[in-house]
């Protein structure tokens, strides 16, 4: 029996996987970025489907609004218009496909054999609980990782500016 919930899941899965495949298969780099965008939107939809609305919102804001825009800008800065990506050698593609297929089959077989201890409790994730736990300094709280991440972001910001800074030609 297919209800709307199930159909929605399969639609989101098809969107995510087909756009993911297109994103690595197309030879136009700009189209690859747009397919990546739709893959990320599909994953955000899956988070909504799993009723983790906060993560879905974070996914859309950070990935779709931040990282993909950054990637598109860097494509504009580094690619000539209308230029296709170079074609890869067939044997490299074949060996990669073989390795990927073997890894995929192995992982799927392992997953299918393992019995996960499934729980039937409904998930109760409210933004209030997330915020309280994020700032909690008790056991199981995430105050320390939060501070470390903020330091990491600061370091990344300063590092980006230093790396991308145009150095002046040296006077000899």
């Amino acid at each position: 029996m297919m209800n709307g919930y199930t159909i929605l899941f399969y639609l989101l899965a098809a969107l995510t996987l087909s756009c993911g495949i297109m994103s690595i298969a197309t030879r136009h780099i700009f189209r690859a970025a747009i397919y990546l965008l739709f893959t990320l939107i599909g994953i955000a939809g899956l988070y909504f489907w799993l009723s983790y609305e906060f993560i879905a919102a974070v996914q859309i804001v950070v990935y779709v609004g931040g990282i993909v825009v950054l990637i598109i800008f860097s494509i504009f800065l580094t690619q000539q218009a209308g230029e296709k990506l170079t074609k890869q050698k067939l044997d490299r593609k074949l060996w990669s496909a073989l390795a990927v297929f073997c890894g995929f089959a192995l992982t799927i077989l392992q997953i299918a054999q393992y019995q996960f201890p499934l729980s039937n409790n409904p998930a109760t994730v409210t933004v209030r609980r997330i915020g309280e736990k994020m700032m909690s300094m008790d056991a199981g709280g995430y105050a320390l990782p939060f501070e470390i991440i903020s330091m990491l972001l600061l370091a990344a910001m300063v590092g980006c500016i230093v790396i991308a800074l145009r150095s002046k030609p040296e006077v000899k």
Partner: protein
Amino acid sequence: MEPGLYHILFISTALFFIGVFGFLTRRNLITMLMSIELILNSVNLNFIAFNKYVWPEKMDGLFFTIFIIAIAAAEAAVAIAIIINLYRNNQSIDVNNAEELKY
């Protein structure tokens, strides 16, 4: 069949190996970065799925996802700074042309 944990694990496994395939076959740095984003997203999806279906009363998977998203943003920014710098020095972002350190 009602979709559950195993369906989501299938999607994330497929997405992970799509990303690995892209990483192995692409030779342009920006597209390799895109493949890494796919891999990170599949890991996030795994964390969220396990959090929902195995330990719904805890929130550890959710926090790992939040931190991975933050680290992915920092990583993408640094990677793009490096790519732009490489383009400025090399006029190309193909990894086959970035061989200054090789010899």
